[in-house]
Each structure stands twice: as C-alpha cells, then as structure tokens.
C-alpha cells in the first residue's frame, strides 16, 4: 500500500495534485491517518511496534511529498526559463550615448599631465589688447615677425588673442616667482584653408624661478617627458628656431608613429612630425612685466594638432563641423 502511495507521489505532475494526494493520505480523513485510528484494534503488546511502523511511514511519505514538491517547483522554473528563452545574438544594442569632443579629451589629457606635475591652470579673456598680445612679448609694432600672425581686430582697436601668451603676461604682472603655469584656451588667426581654421586651441606653459635656476637643459627634459607621455615611445628631435619671446628657441618633432619614420603622407615623407615650440624666456619679456633677476622657460602647442595625430583625424576643418559620423567614433 505504501509503495502504491510512493509511486503516485513520484508520478504526480502538479503541485495541486500533490496537495490532493497529501490530503488523501495524511489529511483529516486520510488513509494513513485512519490507520492510526485502527490502533485500538491492535493487541497491546503489538501496539508499540505498530505505532512505530506507522510513524516511520508517515515520515517517509511526508519526505517524499516534500521532495516531489521541490522537484516540481524546479521543473516549473526550468520550464519557465526555457519558454522565455531568446536568441541573444539578435539583441546587439550599440551604445546610444553621446561623446566628448576629441579636442576636449585631448585638452583634458594635456591639462591632467601638467597639473599632476604641480602646474597651475590659468585662463584669460579671449579679447585682448595690443600690449598683452604683442608688445609685452617682444614683438614691437614694426617687427616683420608680426607677419607670422594675421590678427582679427575690433573697431575699438582690441583684438582676438592670437595665442594664449597674454595669459602668461597677465600672470607675471600679478604673481611673483616661482611661477609654474599652463594657459589653455581658444586662439584666433585670420586664416582659413586646408590646414588652418580661424579659431583653434592652444596650451602654453610658463615656468619662472630665480635667476640661474632654469636652463635650456631643464626645458629639454620637460618637453621630452611630456611628449613621451602623450605619444608613447617615440624619438624626439629639437631644431633651433625663432620666437620673439624666447631665445634660445626650438621646435620639437616626434618620429612619425604612422610609418615608423619610413616616410608617409602624414609626415610629408620626412619621418618627423612637428608638435610644439619652446624656448628660454627672453629677458626683454621680463623687463616688460617688471620682473628682475629671473630665469624661465615657455612652451606652446596646438591642441588640434595633438588630437589629429593621436587619433589620425585627416582634416582639421572636420573638427568644427559637428558631423556625427566623426563624433560618434569617440564614444
């Protein structure tokens, strides 16, 4: 009899049926419960044995029912999972977020590098006057080096700054050395063609300490460390150059990472890419801001140039067109 019950339990396919079976066997009028009632018909010396036997059966059946219940729940869960199964390969969802502009991310990378070296970040007005933009930088009005920069002027003789150097002048006029700063921001030149836009971004840096403390060798070190940080393991070449506000001056090139210096279109087959200018600050500049007994170095770079080299962006003008086909690649 017990075996038949166990078999029924085993075969049971739903929890409601299982409940019915439990009631049928163990309920108020259940078959096993009734068997307990039969006890009065059992002789006294066999009563203990009989009760023990029944209790054992009760435990077995309860266990079997509970076991089957768990098993059924498991099966049900399995069935539910299987029926809600989907082909996951259909659910490719490309990201629908936007993206940071590559000029911003490159600018941030440069700023973060220098702030981690304890440089201060300073900004200044985009609209400047002749003194802060040219004269204080050792570029007198009649100097042919002014040819190098086509300037936007306003009717009241103010101008749009052509470099972020005015910020350095303003800093030197208000801060005493030691000065350790970078000036990032927008600059403007009256030029618009395949390699020039009327507005672009620069980061310029300035370090000033007491006389004799800062040398060209220090400048070389700072530039090398910075460029290796930005571009990885590249070769670095310094070429003497000319800027009105620094002397000695240099332009710095990195070995072309695109062709490993074999020569390609990007490096005009020279194997080198010019990335920044730098130099020891000219004493005339210190005189204009009334700083005495100082030495310093300065450097400047174009952020767009760095962004284009880091990400292989082919055309400068596309950086200002908001074409999502370019911007989405920076997600």
């Amino acid at each position, binding site marked *: 009899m017990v075996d038949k019950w166990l078999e029924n339990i085993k075969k049971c396919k739903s929890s409601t049926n299982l409940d019915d079976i439990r009631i049928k066997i163990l309920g108020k009028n259940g078959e096993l419960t009734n068997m307990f009632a039969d006890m009065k018909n059992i002789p006294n010396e066999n009563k203990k044995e009989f009760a023990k036997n029944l209790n054992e059966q009760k435990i077995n059946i309860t266990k079997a029912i509970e076991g089957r219940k768990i098993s059924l729940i498991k099966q049900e869960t399995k069935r539910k999972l299987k029926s809600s199964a989907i082909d996951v390969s259909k*659910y490719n969802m490309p990201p629908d977020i936007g993206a*940071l502009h590559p000029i911003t991310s490159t600018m941030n990378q440069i700023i973060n590098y220098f702030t981690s070296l304890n440089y201060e970040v300073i900004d200044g007005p985009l609209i400047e006057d002749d003194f802060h933009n040219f004269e204080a930088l050792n570029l007198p009005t009649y100097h042919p080096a002014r*040819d190098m920069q086509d300037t*936007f*002027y306003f009717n009241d003789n103010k101008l749009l700054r052509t470099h972020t150097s005015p910020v350095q002048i303003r800093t030197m006029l208000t801060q005493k050395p030691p000065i350790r700063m970078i000036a990032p921001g927008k600059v403007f030149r009256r030029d618009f063609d395949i390699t020039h836009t*009327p507005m672009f971004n620069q980061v310029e840096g300035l370090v000033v300490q007491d006389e004799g403390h800062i040398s060209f*060798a220090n400048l070389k*070190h700072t530039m090398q460390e910075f460029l290796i940080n930005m571009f990885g393991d590249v070769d670095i070449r*310094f070429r003497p150059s000319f800027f009105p506000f620094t002397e000695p001056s240099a332009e710095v090139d990195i070995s072309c990472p695109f062709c490993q210096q074999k020569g390609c279109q990007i490096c005009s087959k020279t194997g080198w890419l010019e990335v920044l200018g730098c130099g020891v600050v000219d004493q005339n500049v210190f005189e204009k801001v009334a700083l005495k007994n100082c030495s310093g170095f300065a450097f400047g770079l174009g952020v767009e140039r760095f962004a284009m080299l880091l990400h292989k962006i082919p055309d400068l003008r596309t950086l200002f067109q908001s074409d999502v086909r370019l911007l989405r690649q920076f997600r």
Partner: protein
Amino acid sequence: MIVTRYWLQEFIDINDINDKKLCEGLNTIGLEVDKIDKITIPKGVVVGYVKDCKKHKSADKLWVCQVDIGDENLQIVCGAKNIAKDIYVAVATIGTKLSENFIIKNTTLRGENSSGMICSANEINLPKTNDGIMILDNSIGKLDIGAELQNYKLLNDTIIDIELTANRGDCMSIYGVARDLSVYLDIKHPCFDTTIKYTNKAVGQVLSIQDEKDIDANIVLSSVDVKSFKSKLLYDIRTSVANCYDKNIYKNIASYATHSVGVLYDMISEKLKQNKLGLSAIDIKKDKDGFDSIYSKEKITTIGINTNTPDISQIQKDEINIAVVSFYINPDTINKLVFEKKIKTDDIYYKSSRGSEPNLNFGTKYLHKILHTCGADIHSGLKKSNKNKPITILKIDINSINKIIGQDISKQTIIQLLENLQFIIKPLSETLFEMTVPYCRTDIKNIADITEEIVRMVGIDNIKSIPLKLSEQNRQNKTISKLDFFNTIRQKAISAGFYEQISFLFVQKSKALKYGFDTIDNKKELSNPISQELDTTRTTLLLNLLDGVKLNYNQGLNSVALFEIGEVYDKNRVQTNELSFVFSGYKDMPNIQNKSKPSKINISAFVQKISNIIGQFELIATSSIPNNLCHPYNCADIIVKNQKIGFLSELDLDVKNEFGIDDTYIACIKLDKLAKQKIVVKPYSKFQSVYRDLSIVTPKSMPYIDISNTIKNLNIKEIIKFNIIDLYTDKKLKTNESLTIRFLLQNQYKTMSENDILAIMQKILQQLEQKLELRIR
C-alpha cells in the same frame, strides 16, 4: 628659401656630404628642411646643334630644322617662336620617355618628317623659364654635341626648400646658408673668385654720386656697359628654381645675384641728368617721408621699398651705361619708418625689412662677375657712400651663457664657434669677453641671442636634459575647479545621449538679427572678419548648434543631439560662458524593443534629459519670448532656487522648416549661474514611505505652478515630493483637464497609519478646493 647643391658648391665644398647629411645639418642649425627634390632630365635628351632652320611650306607657325646630334643629323619640326639657326638645343630623341604617357616617336607634321623634339625647359623636368625652347650655352658646361643632358650635373641638381625663421635675414641667400653651414660642418668659410678684366674707363669718368649726410643707407655705385649683354641659361634655370625668375633680363640677373649673395641692387638705365663735368649725376637724399631715395632728373626709387626696372627696349637701342647701385639699410630703421608712415611696399621690402647682406663690396663684385660672364663690360672702380655702419658690441660672461644652457660648454669651444661665425672676440678677463657682432647678424642683440648661436652649433641633441627642481605649492585654483565642473557636466550630457560640438566664435550678423538675437554694438564690432558668414562674434551657441543639426540631417540622420559649452558675448562684448543643447528628431533608434516604432523627442523626454544633466529645476512659461527660435507658446524659463538661469523651448515651426529639420527642442543655460552643488545630507526617515494619487479636474488655462505652490504653501512635512503622473482630456471635460498627481508621503518619526495618510490627503484636497476651486475627479 630655395638652395641647390651645386649652387652651394660654388661657395663651399660639400662634395663629400651626401643629401641626408646635408639635410640633417641644416635641420640641426635651425634651417628647417621642408622639401628635398632631385631634378633628373630623362635619358635620351641630348645636346643638339641646329645647322639649318627654314619656314615650313604649309604651316605658318612651324619651322623645319636640321639638327646635328653627333652620330646623325635629324630633321625636326618645331613650332617655337625662338627657334633659329646656329644654336644649341635640347633634343629628345626617338624612344625618349618624357612622362608616363609621352614617348617620342617618329611623326609627320603637315607633310614634313619629324624625328625627335626640340624641348623647352619644363618638358624635361626643369622649371619653366622663357616661352619657347631652351637654348643651351656653356654656362651649363662644355657643350658636346650628342652628349646626354642627364650628365650635365649643373642642370640635374638637388633642390632643397628651407623654411627660414623671421630673424635670419642673413640666410636669405645661397652665400648666407653656405656661411652658416660652413661653421657647423667645420669647413672653410665660403669664398668666390670675383676677378674680372675691367675696361679702360673708370666709374668716376661716367657717374657722379652726391649723398646727403643724413642718409641711413650704405651705397656702392658702379657702372656697366651692357651693349653685348646676353643672359645665360644656368642663371635662368636657377632663378626659376628659386621662384624669382623675371622676363626682364636685367631684373633677372639682379635677381640671380641677390639670391646668390644676398645683396640688394638697383639698376638705373634712364637718361640721367648731366652735371657740369658732363657726368651722369645721381643724388641720394631723403624724400618727403624721410626715406632714403635715389634721384637724378627726378625721383627714381625709394631705397629698400621699391626697385627700378630698366626698360629693355630702350637699352637695346643705344649704348647706355647702367648705373648699378648696391645698397644696405639697417632693418630696424626701415621697419620703424614704414610702420610710422604706413606706405605701400614692393617685394624687395621682404628682404630689406629682415636685413639684407651688408657686404656691398663683395656683392657688387659678384654681380660684376656675373654680368661679365654674360658679355657685359665693367668699368673699373667703386664709388662708396661714407657711412659708418652701426656696430653691436656686447660684453658677455661665458659662465652666464652656460647658466642659460644648463651645461658647461668649454671656453675654447664657445670662442672658436663665435669666431667661425665671424664674431670678433676680445678677452677682458678670465671669463668676460668683448664680442663684436658681424654686420650681417642684425638679429643678435644680447646674451640670449649669443647663447642661441652656441646651442644650435653645438647641437641641441648634444645638450643633456636635466629635471627641474621645483618648489611645491598649492596650485589648485578657481580655474581648475571650473574646468572640473564643466567636465562633470560634459560627462552627464554624454550619458544623456548628446554629442559635444565645438564651433567657431563667429556667426553671421544678419542671421543672428533674423532670429532675434542681440548683436555686438558697432563700436566694438569686428573690423576685419574673415568672411561674410563669420562677420561677428556670437551672442549665442544655439545658431551654431542648429547648423550642426542641419549638417547631420543632410547626411541622412533623423536623430541628432548636440551640446556645446563655450564663450558668448552680450552687446557690450562682455564675455560669459553658455551651455546649450539641441535635440532633434527621434529619441531612440528603431529596435526590437520598440518594434521599429521609435518615438520622436517630446517635451517630457527632453526636460528629463536636461534635468539629468544640470539637476533639479522648475519651468515657468516665459513672459517674453527670448528669441525667434522659440515656439511662441511652448517656451519656458528654467528656474533654480528662484533664479532664472536659462530657457528651454520647442523649436518654432518656421525655423524647423527653414533649417529643414524635424521636431526639435533647445535649451540654453547661463553656466556662470549654475553652481556646483555641495552635498549636505538631510535627515531622512527610516520609516516606511507610501505613494498616494490624487486626480483633480483643473481648467486648462490654470498653470500648474499655481497648483504646486498652493500645495507647497501647506508646508506639510510628510509630503516628501509630488509630481504629475498623468494628464487626461476628453470631450466631456470640455475646457478642463484631469491631472493625476502622485504624492510620496513619509513621517520622520513613525510609520503612518491609514488615518494619518487620509488626513493628509484631505488637507490637500481642502486647500485645493478652497484656494483654487478645484474638485476631485
């Protein structure tokens, strides 16, 4: 600045230095090599001699020539204007490949055989010179009939394009570059043999010069008889290579000499006034603006500002002596005056303003040699103006130089380098020296300039790099905090699906006015914009953002979300920072989830995005529409802590059509009014919170802000927040609508009972009924 190998070779010996080493050297000393090219004349082009030349019987513009090329005589038909008998020419023989698609074949031109081609310069990889065929002469070497032109090395030269910096006027010539290069290569200083045979006449027998005491220029005057002058091919090719070729043969030869040695010349051939002694008289004096000028009968030239061009036709008629004026003027002097007087200048000013070669003796003799080679006769002697050139003498301590460099360069090295650069060094003490700067280096004025010379000749690569010792200091400031804050906003905007745009500071004024934006006051307006489309500084970012949307629609996109953080100006041109957004079209892509039916951006979704980016704000209908981009009704002020910080609006219908874009929303926030929130935690209850909804019927005309303020004025602490969750209208409600507001209720000190909650809701309902006459639905 163009230099070539064999042109340099005339001044210094660089035979043993290959092209790679040459370029490395130039780059190392600061003369940046932009490009290097080798000219190779195609194989098969040979020296030919035109024995005979007759007009073609059936063609007006063609000539039939008999050309000797050594082992044979060729008949060649030629259409050039300058073809003639008894000249040497470049002949491209049969089979010569002049370019990818051009191989010389046997042809017939109007019935006459032509077995080859007489070439012009640019047909055989040389730069273009005259308008006809190239006529050879011995300037390129001994002319052997039949010899390959490829073997004439003076024509097959290596051309190097150097980018000079503005301070190196002394390198604006082959001689100047050679001079600098010779110091680096440690070879003999450049030299050139200027010995010639002079005529029996002396310059003093032909010309007289009168110069005022107050002139600044140095002048050397000489006289040349150009009756037999004929230009030579090599000089034409070279001026062409150097981009200073001139059809006028006198101007061309002066061009050649200037590019060669850097000295500037004026050649005067007009009838000059005769003085009492029968000599042609030239006066050098200042004109009314104060510029040194050359006068005779009248003013001929302003020295260093323009040049005199001798009239060829006049010269060929008579036997006229040309007065050659070599001059030098200090660049600072001429620059200051040009700036002051604001006069127009010619091409020659480019050179005079940077400092031309001051060695006029050498320059004049060099030009004489060239003219003599071309057949001219030179009268002996030079007339000089007695002008002392200003000298720069510096007192420099060697230790100070090394301090600037950061490395100890030996005293011997420094002195040797400077002497090689033509400085005169006189010791004043162990380390102090008196240094006299060579005249050609007007850019050297102080110790920094001297240091630069040492650094570039030693080679920057040979200078060790040394880390800086710095003083640690707190360098955090408002600027970096502001930049961090902007970056946080950027990251939130990106997460909300916006792409960052960076646009020019300029917009089109007429466009800004059309869309109702302020423009800069005329007194402060841009005076030299780069184009009509970019003729004023922007007073808003929104126009550029809409342009960005339009561009992307044109590429076929139907969903565009852009933002920009940037500087804008008010009409007084005061700068502030603006944060603006535009969202146009669909707010997501078709996908399985939305069953290919994505929805367009709507006010709810747009506001949600903006609030995710800038934090909580309230919207109040604007009392006056800020500009014409805004929908006349669906436009709101953004209020944060009772202050207006910007506006948010649906794009006006007309604007949508003008830009050709779909449903669009814009938002513009004054960033300077958006503060970074410092978070202070408010006490919150540990007890259970509960939601309760209230549906009320309100007139459509009643702004929601009245309802929310009425509820807020109750000051019920248990109302944590409330917001609209449904808006229902139908015909039965007529001019009313049904609003469902969901309240989040929570008590700080206990779990609320059902009665507590009911009491609160009753209070709210009562308030709404009393103050606003609203009923529950």
